[in-house]
């Protein structure tokens, strides 16, 4: 196992936990002892949310996303406010603060007011368990995986409250869709992550990073099915294309956010980005080795490695949003229940057997590479069989119309040739 070389000096920037400890000790001298709980929470909030999440929201979530999607869509993106448009997110925030937050007369005022507030709280809580470095984790609890899943199931309720209280039919549609989606995709998501937990033998995110550092490997190579299930499930929960049916702009205007305006809407928008960042950070931790990078973390600050991995994963979210069309709700439902859930269950079974073989025979760590190979073959095989069962053959489907030279009536077509549809 590679030892971590960072020292205990507060100026050792490779591990910011030292700085945090020094500040906390200093504050503890000034204030009475009873306030230590509040101080810790406040410092954690500042350290993780204000220092990392807020700038990331503004510059990766708002500015970066708009610039990148602009490039994908053959346009410039924001470039007027400040150099290269860098002040655009600030201007956006000021504009949102100035706008009036309207409440429809027939809305449920209290719930409509409470929904954005309840939407924000889990977004802050979610970063408490994410390890930014060997000692840079705010709450290193043994069940941090469960904690992440528990906290990420809360915003659904806030979204539902927003949609229901607006007393708008589009909002209600959005609320019903988001509830149905989250119930369906939560199950394969949890099963997929359970497989990861079974293989690594821990439910702590920090423990998983150490596990990947020890082998050394990345979980995505060992557990490709779990990663695929996680990615699809989390993009469904986050309302990202191709699964953004809860705020599908072309169908139900803005879904549960239709009646929201001003900073109330801004809170939803900003915290959506924070959840996407949280999901990216979680994926970077579990599937991409977290803050470790095959020994390089001794020289480069581990938190920098981690943040870069998070941003890279967030880029994938931006990318899918800029390219893919949206699926219909029944297609998404049947995909979750008929494909993701069985595949996650099969994966869990296979992983449990692998773990049993590994631990009961006391095999070396390198055996996980063999497991990884087995899992990749399994994934390809399952997808292949699934395609066979549903007679999926893209080459047989005509993607261009027939061409005729002379006008006339109906030209009948052999419907077999018309192609099977999914």
């Amino acid at each position, binding site marked *: 196992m590679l030892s971590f070389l960072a020292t205990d000096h507060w100026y050792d920037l490779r591990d910011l936990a030292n700085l945090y400890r020094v500040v906390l000790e200093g504050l503890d001298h000034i204030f009475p002892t009873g306030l230590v709980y509040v101080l810790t929470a406040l410092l954690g909030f500042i350290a993780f949310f204000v220092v990392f999440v807020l700038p990331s929201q503004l510059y990766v979530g708002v500015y970066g996303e708009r610039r990148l999607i602009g490039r994908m869509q053959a346009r410039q993106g924001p470039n007027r406010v400040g150099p290269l448009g860098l002040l655009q997110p600030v201007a956006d925030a000021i504009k949102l603060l100035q706008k009036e937050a309207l409440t429809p007369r027939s809305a449920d005022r209290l719930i409509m007011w409470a929904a954005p507030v309840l939407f924000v709280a889990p977004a802050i809580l979610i970063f408490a368990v994410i390890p930014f470095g060997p000692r840079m984790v705010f709450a290193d609890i043994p069940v941090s995986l469960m904690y992440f899943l528990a906290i990420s199931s*809360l915003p659904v309720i806030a979204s539902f409250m927003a949609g229901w209280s607006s007393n708008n039919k589009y909002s209600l549609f959005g609320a019903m869709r988001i509830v149905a989606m989250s119930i369906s995709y939560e199950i394969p998501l949890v099963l997929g992550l359970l497989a990861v937990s079974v293989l690594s033998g821990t439910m702590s995110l920090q423990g998983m990073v150490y596990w990947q550092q020890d082998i050394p490997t990345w979980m995505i190579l060992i557990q490709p099915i779990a990663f695929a299930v996680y990615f699809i499930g989390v993009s469904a929960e986050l309302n990202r294309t191709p699964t953004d049916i809860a705020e599908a702009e072309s169908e139900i205007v803005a879904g549960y956010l239709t009646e929201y305006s001003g900073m109330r809407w801004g809170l939803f928008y900003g915290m959506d980005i924070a959840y996407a960042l949280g999901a990216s950070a979680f994926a970077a931790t579990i599937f991409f080795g977290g803050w470790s990078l095959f020994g390089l973390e001794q020289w480069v600050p581990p938190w920098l490695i981690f943040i870069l991995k998070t941003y890279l994963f967030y880029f994938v979210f931006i990318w899918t949003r800029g390219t893919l069309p949206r699926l219909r709700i029944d297609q998404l439902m049947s995909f979750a229940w008929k494909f993701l859930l069985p595949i996650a269950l099969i994966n869990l079974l296979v992983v449990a057997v692998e773990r049993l073989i590994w631990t009961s025979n006391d095999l070396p760590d390198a055996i996980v590479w063999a497991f990884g190979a087995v899992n990749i073959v399994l994934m390809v095989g399952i997808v292949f069989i699934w395609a066979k069962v549903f007679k999926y053959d893209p080459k047989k489907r005509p993607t261009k119309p027939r061409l005729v030279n002379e006008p006339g009536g109906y030209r009948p077509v052999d419907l077999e040739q018309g192609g099977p549809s999914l």
Partner: protein
Amino acid sequence: MSGFGITVAFWILAALTLASAGGVMASRNLIHAVLFLIVAFLGVSGFFILLSADFLAMAQIIIYVGAISVLILFAIVLTPRAERDNSETSMVLPALLLGTTLAAVLLFVLYDANWNVTNVEPGLSAEVLGSALLSVWVLPFELASVLLTAALVGALMIVRRQEDEEGDSAS
């Protein structure tokens, strides 16, 4: 379980849980009632955390808040508006009777039980819980899962039979 912070947290959680449980009863609007119920569930999971039962607390949030309450909300929204409000029914008296009896039993147990103070470290980690469920308590565990499966199949049957009848009458 000691310390100033834990005491404060306990009383805050107790007040929150009781107040929201009262809200569930008092609220006329069913959606409000469910939202109060969610707050009560969150309060209970707070108690689990105070008892160092992290795993149980997280499971409480995932299952009760994340799944069950959301399902209840979904069911309420889908039911016709006329049947949605929490109006007076003839079941008030039996409900009061049942509630009083239950409260009496609980209070009696509370008073009668012998609350021992032990110095054993709380060891309710996920591993201990998992191995206990699959060794000592394996029979109740499996029975519970069979019961839940039966409930699931039963729920499916209720909907299914109705559709079949419709199909029969149509043909």
